[in-house]
């Protein structure tokens, strides 16, 4: 394998359905429905996707949802705030585990 990430993968993503057409079809149909305007607007969903993309550190998703957020009418400031939500949750998730550490310290220490 020549390399692990290639921007052409994003362009060709739909070809993943070739291995299992029915599951592929169902996934992409579901995916399209998820991102349609609903109780949340398509722009809000795109901002959530951008935040999650950073949390799961997927370069394909970051590329795709940076473009999609702009096209849905979000600006850089809104996108950066969405990113900080992911950052806060990731950081907070580490920090809140510190409560286990704290409990152990209190139990074991004098």
């Amino acid at each position: 394998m020549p390399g692990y990430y290639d921007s052409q993968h994003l362009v060709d993503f739909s070809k993943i359905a070739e291995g299992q057409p029915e599951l592929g079809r169902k996934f992409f149909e579901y995916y399209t429905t998820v991102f349609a305007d609903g109780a949340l607007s398509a722009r809000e969903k795109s901002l959530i996707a951008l935040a999650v993309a950073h949390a799961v550190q997927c370069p394909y998703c970051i590329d795709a949802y940076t473009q999609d957020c702009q096209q849905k009418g979000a600006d850089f400031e809104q996108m950066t705030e969405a990113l900080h939500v992911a950052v806060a949750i990731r950081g907070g998730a580490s920090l809140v585990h510190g409560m286990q550490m704290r409990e152990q310290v209190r139990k074991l220490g004098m």
Partner: protein
Amino acid sequence: MNLDLVALQKVTDDLNSDRSTPRAATTLRRRGSPLADTGEQLRVLASAPLQRQGQPVEFEMLTQGALTPSELEIFQINVGKLCNMTCRHCHVDAGPDRSDAFMSDEIVDHVIAAIERTRAHTVDITGGAPELHPRFRDLVNAAAAAGKHVMDRCNLTILLLPRNYGLIDWLAERNVEVVGSLPHYRRPNTDAQRGQGVFDRSIEAMRMLNAAGYGRGNPKRRLTLVSNPAGAFLGASQATAEREWRQSLEREYGVTFDRLFVLNNMPISRFLEWLVESGNFETYMQKLVQAFNPAAIAGLMCRNTLSVGWDGRLYDCDFNQMLDLEIALPEGPHISRFDEGRWHARSIVTARHCFGCTAGAGSSCGGQTA
């Protein structure tokens, strides 16, 4: 010196002494850019390798032949390229230095005579900033007297210039629809495209319009906003964007409007220059081709609009006008010889920039078309 030149001098003096309007760019013409020449713009457009499903593609292949007219509904007048602003994406290459492109009294008189004859129900006045033209009010009065709905394509900041005090009430008395440009409902993207401080001045103009009864649901005081992307991507969904804009503008600034048009940026003039310089040109063209939407064709403005240029020449739309692609009429493309019967029989002139109007949800002077 004839009257035209005296009037023109007054306008350019006002613009030269205006220190309040922010400006984002300078005109291609002032900089002597090769792209100031429309032939060069067409050459650049033709140079992009456009493909669809792995095959080379042209606009006319996807529309399966020439586009044809529907009914003439919109009589659009471009009075010239003078503007108090110089937005980075301007498809007109308008600016305060464009006194070279300015409608003369003689052409204004031809236009007024044609307005009195036309079956079009709407007269749409654009520019540049059309309010700068000394005979703007004559055109509005003539159209209103002929029973037409009148649209003023307004950059909003022009309403704050001292020369235009009282203009909003004057427009309101004549039920003129104000079609105001505002790229985005928040400050950063608006100022990036139109100049630092433009957003705040646009909101100030909207407050004045609201105070005069515009943008409050009265069809005789309609305030339409026009958004276009601040970058190399397509416009957002118009219906969704309108909801979000309405909520945000009212909550943050206490201003209201009646409807929102979302347009795509055409790859011509200053936006074309930006695409090329930012390295986005080929991918943007390819994006427009990929997003080609056959459902957008029926509502395209070229099918129901006559576009009149500052020098009286005629076009299928304002974008063709900016590329010097004249209308295909046997009498020749000039307002003094305009025969409305022939308008219906012509084929519409298209080229690669037309992919901008058929991409995604479509894009025309009346907003999205699909």
